């Protein structure tokens, strides 16, 4: 009965919507009916744009007039591996400009893999009086001068996080631009900065900001200074140390240990560049309450690692180098029963011989002992179908599984067979798997398994795998919830792509590089699917200068409602759609 809808005043519906924050649900609400669409748009406070080219700033700003918080992602994920050349795009300036005009009350900006210049930072500092959160993950294009504009002007800044971003470090005094009266800092992450910041300014800042919860220092902060900083902020919940090494002096050690003991709320540790193992015991007082430990820069040996992690019984997230070895992972399996996420990074990825005793067995142990394990990123040199099968059966609750066998096309080291069956077991048993990265020797068969079982899979990364187009076809036709697919160096060509062209409109993006997709197929896709941007990246020169059958270097296809982007560099060609040919 329409009676129900009309008896709800808008304010009531708005009030109901205010309790719904998840983007997916907001999306569903907006698709229910016209009135809900309008009300939802009007009261939307938070917008997430997964691909900055999928929609234009003008459209967002027009539809959602009252946004306070924006998160935008730019370059494709494979940019992390240098597969996206310089100058590709993902400039945030048009967004900042549009929002400066439309959202004077904007509070939060979170960007990932975007290019942000000092000019943008200055515009932010000038335009948003209540600005409070700036998180830049894997971004680039700015300098410490831009940061100075933020610190000098944003009186209500609460979070300033530079995660893995490339910052041109001109001068460490940007931190001193925070006025003495400024005390609202809650989170500061400068871990990616190369040079020193003004330490005394930092100490003063830390001690006067009594709400500070997160402090991630950069490598340049010496260990001797850490104790003082900690004393200034005993309420810290998350700490990233600077360099964790200095000449061993008992008084420095005692000072540090005492400072750590004073931090009763500490739950997360990171940093640990250049660790001197004899300073690790200073951490022991806080180990038992740690939920997150990032040792991915700590080049310490297995025995020291074991001594540390064996005390971290509350650990939920662990990032560590492969120095942990199988033995260490066994200890973790026994001690860290709450572990949800494990990442093991390679210490010597380019070495031809293994330098550590880390094999598939370590992961098997953890999968057995840690029943809450859901998220895995594991670099190793050997894997077997049997191990993968065991892992899959142990942990059907796995949601993210990324395995990186260092040697491409490495087969099952026991049977010399492809790892199809092993990954097949993963997708079959882990019914909630959302993200998967493949490695090792893989035939089309593994893709058939993925297409059959990977019904909840949202992101798939593939490299050096598959035999024919059939592989790609299985994935595109089988994975109902696929949103992001990234492929490199696989023998996938035109047929699967063209046969499943409609699928591409249901996904955020597809990346294919060093595959066998021809220029002709790209043209056809671009022509027939105007709601996709089919962008060919080819640094060899215009694809027109080569035959249509010639494979393109790289291909990035994404759905969009804003048509072609206007900032493509010279080596990117967008395949025209026939709307360009229509007379308006």
């Amino acid at each position: 009965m329409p009676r129900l809808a009309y008896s709800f005043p808008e304010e009531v519906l708005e009030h109901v919507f205010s309790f719904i924050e998840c983007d997916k649900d907001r999306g569903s609400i907006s698709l229910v009916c016209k009135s809900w669409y309008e009300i939802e748009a009007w009261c939307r406070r938070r917008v997430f744009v997964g691909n900055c080219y999928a929609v234009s700033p003008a459209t967002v700003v027009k539809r959602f007039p009252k946004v306070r918080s924006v998160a935008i992602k730019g370059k494709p994920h494979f940019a992390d591996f240098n597969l996206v050349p310089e100058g590709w795009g993902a400039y945030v300036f048009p967004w900042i400009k549009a929002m400066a005009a439309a959202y004077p009350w904007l509070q939060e900006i979170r960007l990932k893999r975007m290019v942000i210049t000092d000019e943008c930072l200055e515009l932010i500092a000038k335009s948003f009086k209540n600005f409070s959160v700036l998180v830049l993950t894997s971004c680039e294009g700015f300098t410490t001068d831009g940061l100075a504009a933020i610190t000098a002007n944003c009186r209500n800044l609460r979070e300033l996080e530079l995660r893995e971003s490339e910052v041109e470090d001109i001068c460490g005094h940007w931190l001193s631009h925070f006025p003495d009266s400024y005390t609202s800092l809650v989170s500061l992450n400068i871990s990616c900065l190369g040079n020193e910041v003004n330490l005394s300014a930092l100490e003063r800042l830390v001690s006067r900001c009594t709400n500070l919860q997160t402090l991630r220092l950069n490598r340049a902060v010496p260990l001797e200074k850490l104790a003082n900083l900690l004393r200034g902020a005993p309420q810290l919940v998350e700490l990233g140390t600077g360099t964790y090494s200095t000449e061993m002096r008992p008084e420095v050690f005692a000072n540090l240990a005492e400072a750590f003991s004073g931090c009763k709320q500490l739950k997360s540790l990171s940093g640990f560049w250049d660790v001197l193992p004899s300073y690790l015991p200073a951490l022991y007082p806080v180990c038992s309450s740690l939920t997150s430990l990032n040792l991915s820069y700590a080049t310490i040996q297995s025995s020291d690692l074991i001594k540390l992690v064996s005390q971290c019984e509350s650990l939920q997230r662990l990032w560590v180098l492969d120095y942990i070895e199988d033995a260490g992972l066994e200890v973790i399996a026994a001690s860290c029963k709450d572990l949800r996420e494990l990442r093991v990074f390679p210490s010597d990825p380019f070495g031809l011989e293994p330098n550590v005793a880390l094999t598939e067995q370590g992961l098997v142990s953890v999968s057995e002992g840690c029943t809450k394990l859901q998220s895995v990123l594991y670099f190793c040199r050997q894997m077997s179908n049997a191990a993968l099968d065991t892992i899959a059966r142990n942990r059907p609750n796995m949601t993210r599984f990324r395995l990186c066998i260092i040697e491409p096309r490495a087969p099952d080291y026991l049977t010399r067979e492809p790892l199809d069956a092993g990954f097949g077991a993963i997708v079959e048993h882990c019914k909630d798997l959302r993200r998967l990265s493949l490695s090792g020797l893989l035939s089309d068969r593994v893709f058939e398994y993925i297409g059959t079982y990977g019904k909840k899979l949202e992101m798939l990364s593939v490299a050096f795998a598959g035999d024919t187009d059939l592989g790609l076809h299985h994935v595109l036709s089988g994975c109902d919830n696929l949103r992001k697919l990234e492929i490199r160096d696989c023998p996938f060509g035109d047929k699967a792509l063209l046969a499943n062209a409609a699928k591409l409109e249901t996904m955020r993006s597809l990346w294919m590089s060093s595959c066998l997709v021809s220029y002709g197929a790209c043209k056809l896709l671009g022509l027939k699917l105007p709601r996709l941007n089919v962008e060919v990246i080819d640094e060899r020169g215009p694809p027109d200068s080569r035959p249509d059958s010639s494979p393109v270097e790289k291909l990035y296809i994404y759905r969009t409602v804003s048509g072609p982007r206007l900032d493509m560099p010279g080596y990117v060609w967008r395949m025209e759609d026939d709307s360009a040919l229509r007379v308006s």
Partner: protein
Amino acid sequence: MSEIDMAVIKPEMMKPYVWLQTSDDSIQQVEQEIAMFCPLICQEIIQKGMGSSKNCAICLPQQVSPAMLSLILDYCRFHQVPGRSNKERKSYDEKFVRIDTERLCELTSAADSLQLKPLVDLTSRALARIIEGKSPEEIRDIFHLPDDLTEEEKLEPLRNITADPRIRLLNRLYAKKRKELKERERLKNIEVEEEHVDERSVDDLLSFINGNEGEPKGVKTSKNKKKNRRKKEQQKNSSSKETSELDKKEVNGHDIRHQSSEAERISESSYLHYAEDGTSTPKSDDGDIYDGIDPALKEKIDREVEDFARRLNSDWPERMQELLSSGQDRKTLLFNTDGFLRRHACMFSLVLQYFPFSIICFLAEL
């Protein structure tokens, strides 16, 4: 006996009562103490002096039916008792909203009209929980809402294409073909065991030849320390807002039906027409694959699959040539001298020079 008589007869039970008129025009008497919990009623009593008798009954907003008033009064009656613990109140609230959605909606409206904020919050949250996780169609059903957005406005690209019967049939055909190829291969391997060994020695030979070149001395230098660790950051205060349905909802979309059919036409041009076969999704065991398809069509389909396999096979030699000649260029792009090399997902950038040769070895089996 009238209510007034009752009040006279039992003076020890005398509590102030207030008269309220609900949406059906019926009038009832309610303990004043309880009714005052509702700001609107409170306002009417204090500011306008209403409700003291049947004649000047407070006219409640039309959202308040007798049933709703009863519920609201129950709520007020419970919560106005001061001694209750938070736990008790919470428990009562949770049970209180366990009613069917239609009544919950009515209750929200009624509470809102009476300005009873705590109850509005409670019911709104309950409604939000009902809405969460549901699809637009489900939400429409539950709340009896019209489906009045146009296709353009919905920009609904999330059609499930695996339901496409062509795709399903294609999958089954491939499964059959693959089974045949596997059989053939099995027979071949029994005779020609050495081929397998040969492949590996090619790789070994390569690593011997290319061993020195395998060192990652990159040509390209990167500016600063770009950390290329493979990571999926989910650290933002534990809420991972990964999905972006923004582009789905835009108003200035194109004609969806037109586009869908274009996409289908591309599929068709690759694989021609197949009969609709409305059966369930394929599994690898495909004994019944040709059920219900007439022989002439079956032959046509067989030919198509053969043709497909042949085309795949014949294309490779030319493509290999191209790859081999451009292999060198590609190598330099993928290595760099970054000091933080271990942060790279090196699994991807290693040993590129093996790639073209391995591919050939693979395809030999097809």
